[in-house]
Every structure is written in structure tokens, then in C-alpha cells.
């Protein structure tokens, strides 16, 4: 099976890491995933282990939530501090750290948006940047909305004018929610594109260009969606 460059790179690094790492307890070479095969002691999740690897999933954007949950429960049973109360202090510390990593990993991968943002950070090395100005196609609309919002905030909410503005804002909220849904379905399409590309596993320059296109488009969409999402939340809070 072939991988694209960056994923192959991290895979190799991970394998090296595994081969090099030794059990903290019996010093034997580690081959098991989280438990030493010789002395059965729990091993700390490596700092370089990404959340997909931690939960035993490939870097795909469509994950079966049931399988993810089952894996999370399985690993929780393996790591949770409740089951280490009678063990040594070192094992207790490892269990606590591992459980915390596992919880973060599950929380991140469970949510499709957070999952995509995380993958983007892994693949393109970017941290999610939240836009501070509206996306171009929404520029006019958002400016108008801000005006209406200001007017509503200044108005007597029980007056006719207040009611009229509120109705307008409710309309706007619905429009923006639809807009958010559109972006989410576009994202969904990109997720599928990404997964298919990964599954094909071609190492051609065409595949690399396709990979870059998906990642860039995804980044723009995620950033626009976050922007719209914040506006919707703010709007909902104002007229609630």
C-alpha cells in the first residue's frame, strides 16, 4: 500500500519510534501497542502519536461514530485511572496521562468539524485561522446584518419597531443557517474526496495536486463556516 508523501513520512517515523522505544519497566523492546508484551505494564502514549493513530483509525474524514465510540470505550477500560488504583505510582501517572490524551483524541475525532480541522493541522501544518472579516460572497449581507443588529439592540424590544427588527433578524438567522448547511454539505463532499484519494493511494504528481486542492478548499470552507457559525450564535443569543 502506498501513501502520499507526508503520511508515508510520519508512518515511517512512527515505526522507527516504536522500534526504538523500550518498556519503561522491563527495558525490553516494545512491540505491543500500549502494553509491554513481556511484563504487561501500561506504556505512555507517545507525544508524537496523533489522535487517529491513538484511536486506531486511518486519517479519514468519514468515520463510523459507533466504531469510534466502541474503540474509545475499549481504550478507556485499558487506561482509566479507576483500574490503576492498586498499581504502582508510575503506572498511575501513565494511566492518568493516557486517559487525558484519549479523552482529547475522542473529543476531537467525534465531531466532524473538529476532526477536519485537526486533520488539516496534521497534513498542512496549519492551525485553524478564524476569519475576522466576512467571506467575499457574504460581505454585503453581513454588513447589513450588523446594522440591523445595532438598531435592534438600541430599540425598545417590545415596540412595533422592535418586533419588526426581530422578525428581520430571525429571517437573517434562517438564511445564515441555510448557508452554514450548504457549506457543511460542501465540506462533506470534500471529506469524501479526501477519503477516496487516500484510499487510492496514488503517489503521482496529479494526486499530490489533488491533495493540495482539497486541503486548501477545506481550509477556506472551515474558516468561512466558523465565521458564519459565530455570527449565527451571536444572533441567536441577541434575539433569544
Amino acid at each position: 500500500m502506498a501513501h502520499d508523501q507526508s503520511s508515508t513520512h510520519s508512518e515511517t517515523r512512527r515505526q522507527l519510534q516504536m522500534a526504538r522505544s523500550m518498556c519503561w519497566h522491563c527495558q525490553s523492546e516494545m512491540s505491543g501497542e500500549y502494553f509491554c508484551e513481556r511484563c504487561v505494564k501500561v506504556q505512555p502514549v507517545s507525544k508524537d502519536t496523533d489522535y487517529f493513530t491513538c484511536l486506531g483509525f486511518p486519517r479519514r474524514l468519514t468515520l463510523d461514530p459507533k466504531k469510534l465510540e466502541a474503540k474509545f470505550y475499549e481504550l478507556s477500560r485499558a487506561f482509566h485511572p479507576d483500574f490503576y488504583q492498586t498499581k504502582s505510582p508510575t503506572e498511575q501517572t501513565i494511566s492518568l496521562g493516557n486517559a487525558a490524551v484519549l479523552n482529547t483524541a475522542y473529543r476531537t475525532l467525534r465531531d466532524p468539524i473538529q476532526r477536519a480541522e485537526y486533520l488539516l493541522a496534521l497534513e498542512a501544518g496549519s492551525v485553524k485561522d478564524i476569519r475576522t472579516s466576512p467571506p467575499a460572497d457574504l460581505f454585503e449581507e453581513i454588513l447589513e446584518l450588523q446594522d440591523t443588529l445595532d438598531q435592534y439592540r438600541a430599540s425598545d424590544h417590545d415596540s412595533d419597531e422592535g418586533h419588526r427588527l426581530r422578525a428581520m433578524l430571525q429571517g437573517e438567522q434562517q438564511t445564515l443557517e441555510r448557508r452554514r448547511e450548504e457549506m457543511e454539505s460542501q465540506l462533506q463532499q470534500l471529506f469524501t474526496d479526501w477519503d477516496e484519494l487516500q484510499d487510492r493511494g496514488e503517489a503521482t504528481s496529479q494526486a499530490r495536486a489533488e491533495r493540495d486542492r482539497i486541503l486548501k478548499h477545506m481550509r477556506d470552507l472551515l474558516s468561512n463556516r466558523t465565521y458564519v457559525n459565530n455570527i449565527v450564535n451571536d444572533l441567536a443569543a441577541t434575539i433569544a
Partner: protein
Amino acid sequence: MARIVGIDLGTTNSLIAYMKDDQPCVVPDRHGRTMVPSVVALTDNGLIVGDSAREHLTRNPERTVYSVKRFMGKGLVDVQSELAYFPYHLSETGGVIRIRLGPKNYSPPQISAMILKELKRRAEAHLGESLTKAVITVPAYFNDSQRQATKDAGLIAGLEVLRIINEPTAASLAYGLQEKTQGTIAVYDFGGGTFDISILKLKDGIFEVLATNGDTHLGGDDLDRVLVDLFVEEIRDQRGIDIGSYPDHMQAIRLEAERAKIRLSDELKTEITIELPEDKGRFTRELTRDQLESLVVRIIECTLAPCRIALKDAGLTPNDIDEVVLVGGSTRMPLVRQRVEALFGKVPHCHLNPDEVVALGAAVQADILSGGTTDMLLLDVTPLSLGIETMGGVMSSLIRRNTTIPASAKEMFTTYVDGQTGVDIHILQGERELVKDNRSLARFRLKVPPLPAGVPRIEVTFLIDANGILNVTAKDMRTGQSQSIEVKPSYGLSDTEVERMIEDSFKFAAEDVSARKLIEARLDADALVKTTEKSLAEAGHLASTEEVNGIRTALALLSTAKDGTDARLIRARMADLEQAAKHLNVVMLDDSLKKSLHGKKVSDV
């Protein structure tokens, strides 16, 4: 591994439970009572706890502490609005409330430790072994300071607190074990002083908390106060008496209000009787359930908003909830049940005793920790967002509320000025934007090597452990050196203070034991005096004058001993009296036998 017990340290009552043949059970006292009133009284004979202390609420209100849980992890300013309701004197030192009992001041963890010790003693007597490890429950919505204060109380009581667990989740463990519940459940826990709602998913032995919310200052106490306020006002208007200035009568009113509220869960109306001060007679009135409900409906509705937020945070609607479980004494009120049913659209259930279910769950968790069972696992969440103060007095969230614990977040810190040697960090908990609207948890100073601005890189890890308690560690990324951090709690005892309290507690343990022995000896002596006097009155004529005189002398000697402080002397005098009255008792027994046989035919015997 040594036995671990489960403790429900409640606002009104506390219980201790353990696992017996795979089933949790609550430890009863000699009379079969499972609840220990969370009341501590300072009497002339020393500190007493529980039922006997409860009697001092009206006799000795200034020296009898109740509802101490409301003060855990708090400063005086937090309870300012309700100071008038408490007859005992409160002050504050180092961000911690102090309660005056006689000549000394006690912190809330110390008072709670006395209750814990009483529970520990009771369980030790019941199980015939010494106990040193415990799981203690707290309201799910308790913040870090309140949890830490509970842990401190355990330490002071000589208990290693292996886990602090949330009351509603403890209840779900008990239900999961006994009812084999599966699916999504809502636990509505309305107790004496606190309210919690937790939404959980139960699947294959995993108890995953999806969201929790609540109010740590909302409970049965608040319902009682509405009634107290009403009665005080009526007594003033109708009888012209300012009863608020009589602490003992105020306590009597509070207890009467509580009793009336409880009665009205079963009855539609009840009679209120309050003795007035200075021989002014009695105040009586009828109170109907309707009247009670219209008075407290506003408070009960305060529990509904947290339920809605918890549902929203869990991403669920009421329809998604398979079962609603009721926990806590206040859920016995029909109005509470109606409102809960209306909100969730299903009949809530409470197959397990709502007073005992939390302690039972704590025993189940204790069993999990001791390796007794690996079938069940609780995945709980942190109830409040954790963050740090940033520029402009704004809180920056690091760990959001309802994050599964253990949870950790890392943050990198650097310097803004050349040669700066420290960075001050202020840790907060809460959901609001501004620092001033959130709860200050602690402050600490990060040590930084003097370098040009921006060069130092110190990584701080904020870790919320399985108890929901924060641990902070720091590492210099340039040198890889870890540094120890001295965190100064905003509303908690310092480590040195807790250590001193533990020492004090050991020092006074010997005194406590002798005080207890004295109290018990006196109680037993009282009982013996009473029965002997009764025997003398009923059967004195059957004994010789010499014998009667002997008994009277022994009685007098016992009375004198009872006024002293030597428990062994009291016991010795009791033995003397028993010896002196031995013959009389035999004679009495014969006499009563004769009487019962009198008039009966031999064939009937």
C-alpha cells in the same frame, strides 16, 4: 487491598456504605437508622455529632453547626445574603470561612471531618475492622475549591480519599448495578442544599456522562426558609413578637418548617405549632399542600433551567431521554415530580431509596477502585470551564465544561520584558467572559530564567484528574526541566494548614475518645438509674429495708460519679448499683411471674 468505604457527605444527612457479597449496603446504627444528621454540637461534655447533636439545635443554637456543606470551599462574601439564617458565628481567615464553636474557630473541612469521623467510627464498629480509605461524593456542580475542601475534610478525619465522585453519577452506578439500566438517563438530584442534573449514556457497563449542570446553593434548605420567613412574618403581625431575635426559637421554627414540608408530601394539609418565647403561648396555623406549593414553586422552577442547559450541552432533546431517575430527599415533593415529569415528558422513577442511593453508588465506585469489579466504568465530566486570566480581565478557556475527565490542556508562556523572572498566572472556573464574573481558583508564579523578552518558553500543563481536581505542572522547554509550582488557592486551606489540622485532629483524637466514653457512660447510667427507681417504686415493698437503703446509697454514689468526668468511675458505680439491686430484680421477676400465673389453671401453664 484494604476495604474502601463509600461516603455520602450530605448537607442534611450523611451515610456510609460498603460492599457485602457484591451488593452495596448502608451501615446502620444500633437502632437501625442509616442516616447520620450532618450536625455537630459543642456541649459541656465535648463535641458530639449526629442524632444527639441534632437535639442541641434548639437547646444550644449558637454552638450547633448544621448545613456546613454550604460553606465548603467558600469565602464569607459568598454567603453574605444568608448569614442571618445561621445562629452560629461565622468569620473568614485566608479566604476560608471559620465557624465559632465555643472558644475555637473551625474551618468547614474540620467540621465535615467530625461528621466523617463519626461515620468512620460507626462503620468500624459495624465491620469490626479499622478503615482508612474512602470514596466521598460531592455535588456534580461543585467547583475545584469545593472538591478540594471535601478532600481536605477526609484527610483531617484520617481517611485517604481515593476518589471524589459526583452524587448523580454515584446514583447512576447504584441504579446500573441493581436495575441493569441501559440507554440515556437523566439523574435529577435535589438534596438538602444542592441541585444537580446529569445526563448519562449507559452502555455495556460504561457510564458516560454527556453533560452536567446544577446549582450548589439550591436545595431543601431554601424551601424551608420560605416557610420560616412566612411564619416569622405572621408571628410578628399577629402576635407582635420579633421571634427572629430568639435563636433557639428560630431553630425550632426551622425544624417545624422542615417537618411540615415533609408531611405535606403525603398529606394535603398539616398543622403548624410553634412555641412562642417568654410564655406568650403558641402560634398555630394550618398549612395546605397548595399553599406550600405556591410558596416554593419559584425555587423549584430554578432547577429546570439547568436541566435544559444540560440537555442542550449533551445535544439531546427530552425525547432522547429513556429514563429519569430521582435522587435526594427534596424529590419526594409531589410538585417536584410533576415539574420533572412535565419537562422530560416521562414519569420519573425512584425504585431505590433517594436518601441512600448516593451512598450505595459510592460503595460501588469503591469496589471498582479496589479491583473488586471491572464490569463497570464511570466516565465523568468537569462541570465548569477552566481557564486563565488574560489581558484586559478576560478569561481564556483551556478546558471547556462537560469535557470528559481526566482532561488536560497545555499552554505556552513567555515574557514581555527583557530579564523578566516571573509570570503570574491566575486560574479561573466559570462560563462568563470576564474574569470578575468567574470563580477565582488559584494563583501561582511561574519562575522564568532572566532572558531577553520572548525567549523563555515555559509549558504549563493543566490537568483535571478523575476527581475533577486541578493539578498544575510546568516545564521549561529550553532546558526540559520541570519546575514545581506552589499554587495558592483563592478559597481553600493551604497545605500547611491542612497538615496542622490533621495533627490537631490526631492530638484531639485521644480526647475525643475519652469524651465519647464519658458521654456513653452517662447515657447508660441515666438508663440504669431510671429502671432502678422504677423497680423501687413498684417492688420496693418486697425487699428488706436494709436492701432498699443499700440500693439508695448506690444510686446516690452513681449520681455523684455521673456529675464527674471519670467514665471508669461511672461504670464502677453502675456495677455496684446492679449488684445492690440484683436481689430486688429477682424478687420482682418472681412476683410478676406469680401474678401472671395467678388465676390460671395448672393445665394452662
